[in-house]
């Protein structure tokens, strides 16, 4: 029976794979399309022209990775308290250092006029310009557990204890719009139209706010915490991890209130750990706790296997900006990039 072989068909025929031997914390493509993996041993591994390059970016574990706001390269945060920029040639530059405090989340927004880098350190989010100069510091009442720029880079949304905050990046006065909901919020997503803010909560549920009318949205029923959540390009669906399937909430026709979520790629006893919506199509890539990676077409419900189980729980997943390639990595150190575009 060649079950496993067929589940690995895409990986075998279109993939580049590597065993790193350290926890794959995150993966991202830079603005020019080069993929990198951030590891628990402090290195970034860049895949350039088919060969791997290791960069010792942090002394400890890398905790977060994002594309640089510049045309090439990456920014990362680590448990060494450093916010670091890594160029494609492997040169690293410290943007800022925070001593014993961890840099737990990073994000960037690329814009011809005013590119921005963001790093979350405890209760503060520090914003920098592309040159690495500090623009401002956004202070919260409790530690920041997630941050995301809106589609136009105008606002940054953060999650924390008792809710979420929306800050205007360019605002002179630093008063956020505070979205309150009691409890610990541990991750955040923003819909493409910028109208819906959704957080994952400690209690295996999601909470959302519709900004235009102040409507609260509650989405519950998860057996585990949602660590990963992602809106589709159209904003019609919110894909989430934390269940024994990819759970998709409809954000159309008044939803998700009063509507049941769609579940795809269900598997008994195996949790979905990572989701990443395709940057163009209504499709979502998902990774599972047994190491399986699939691509799900949402309208048809068709599931395309990308990688077979057995290489460790999937801990990182990202699409290239053009949607042609998918990068993923696991807790046990497996990493791969699969190219869907080549003929």
């Amino acid at each position, binding site marked *: 029976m060649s079950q496993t072989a067929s589940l690995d068909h895409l990986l075998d025929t279109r993939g580049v794979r590597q065993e790193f031997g350290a926890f794959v914390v995150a993966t991202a493509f830079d603005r020019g399309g080069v993929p990198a993996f951030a590891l628990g041993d402090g290195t970034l591994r860049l895949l350039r022209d088919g060969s791997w390059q290791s960069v010792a970016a942090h002394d400890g574990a*890398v905790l977060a990775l994002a594309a640089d706001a510049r045309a090439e390269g990456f920014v990362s945060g680590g*448990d060494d308290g450093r916010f670091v920029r890594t160029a494609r040639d492997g040169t690293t530059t410290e943007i800022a250092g925070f001593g014993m405090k961890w840099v737990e989340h990073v994000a960037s927004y690329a814009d011809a006029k005013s590119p921005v880098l963001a790093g979350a350190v405890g209760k503060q989010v520090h914003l920098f310009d592309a040159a690495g100069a500090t623009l401002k510091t956004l202070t919260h009442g409790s530690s920041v557990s997630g941050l995301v720029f809106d589609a136009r880079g105008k606002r940054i949304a953060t999650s924390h204890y008792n809710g979420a905050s929306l800050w205007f990046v360019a605002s002179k006065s630093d008063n956020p719009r505070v979205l309150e909901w009691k*409890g610990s919020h541990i991750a955040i997503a923003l819909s493409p139209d910028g109208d819906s803010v959704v957080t994952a909560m400690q209690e295996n549920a999601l909470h959302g706010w519709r900004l235009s009318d102040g409507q609260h949205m509650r989405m519950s029923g998860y057996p585990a915490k949602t660590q990963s959540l992602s809106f589709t390009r159209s904003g019609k669906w919110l894909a989430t991890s934390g269940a024994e399937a990819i759970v998709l909430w409809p954000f159309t026709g008044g939803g998700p209130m009063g509507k049941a979520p769609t579940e795809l790629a269900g598997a008994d006893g195996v949790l979905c750990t990572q989701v990443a919506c395709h940057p163009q199509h209504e499709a979502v890539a998902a990774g599972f706790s047994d190491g399986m990676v699939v691509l799900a077409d949402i309208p048809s419900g068709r599931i395309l296997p990308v990688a077979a189980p057995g290489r460790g729980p999937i801990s990182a997943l990202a699409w290239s900006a053009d949607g042609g390639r998918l990068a993923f990595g696991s807790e046990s150190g497996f990493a791969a990039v699969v190219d869907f575009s080549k003929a």
Partner: protein
Amino acid sequence: MPDASAPTEALVPVTVLTGYLGAGKTTLLNRILTEQHGRKYAVVINEFGELGVDNDLVVDSDEEVFEMNNGCICCTVRGDLIRIVGGLMKRRGKFDGIIIETTGLANPAPVAQTFFVDETVRSRTRLDAIVTVVDAKHLPQRLADSHEAADQIAFADVIVLNKTDLVTPEELAAVEQRIRDINPFATIHHAVRGDVPVTALLEQGAFDLDRVLAHTPDFLADDAHEHNEDVASMSFEVERPIDPERFNAWIGALLAAEGQNLLRTKGILAYPGEDRRFAFQAVHMIADGDFVGPWREGEPRRSRIVFIGRNLNRPQLRRGFESCQVKA
């Protein structure tokens, strides 16, 4: 020794170090880290903490106590620890255990509850023991002027009774008795400048169910004297086997009603027709129980339960526990 067959072997042990300001917590922590034990520890210190020695992995944390959204007001967790444990797991294999130092005024309950409530933390770590450092000379005063000093003793599995050189033998005996009145099952080590061997502090397995009541308090002597402590302990023992359904109904209702006052509860139960002991423990309302090893041959199969808490009603607790027995 931990059971070799238990899956807990892969879990990273976590030691919580509590103690009032000035009790000698930092000195003890530095001792643990400098002693040549060949093990590496990740250390989480609080925002006011300072570490006098070099350690590869020190995390500076704000103690963020979060309420859970489950309608239970005493169910609080340390949100910062959930994040930190998640982060530390990314460099798994680089250290053998985690030591968490709390601030002097910290209530240990949220730290302990984090290791029971959060699924991710639970799946990767195990709470090994709560170690409380107390100052032999100043403890009576601390007990008089703060809730937290008693809480820290009540929650402790191991108590380092420090600065014994500053008190007379009589004072030492009196302070030890006060500790015993609050917490009969903690192991007490006398110390001067925290000179306790690391082996007496780490790898204690104090929260393993099969170690529940391993340090059996003296059940018979317990009722002999009256305590005047704010926090006290009460132990009960019954002869006939316990009916599991009645016990679950009783303990469930008791923890729901009195969970805020009940700091720690531990029990070993004999179920009818069951050769294994049933072990039970709770931190406030959060309970955990399972069958552990068999009763030893010739060992009397008596069920025992110990409560540590405030405003304990002895007759009510006794009647409640007795009513869980199967009909004579």
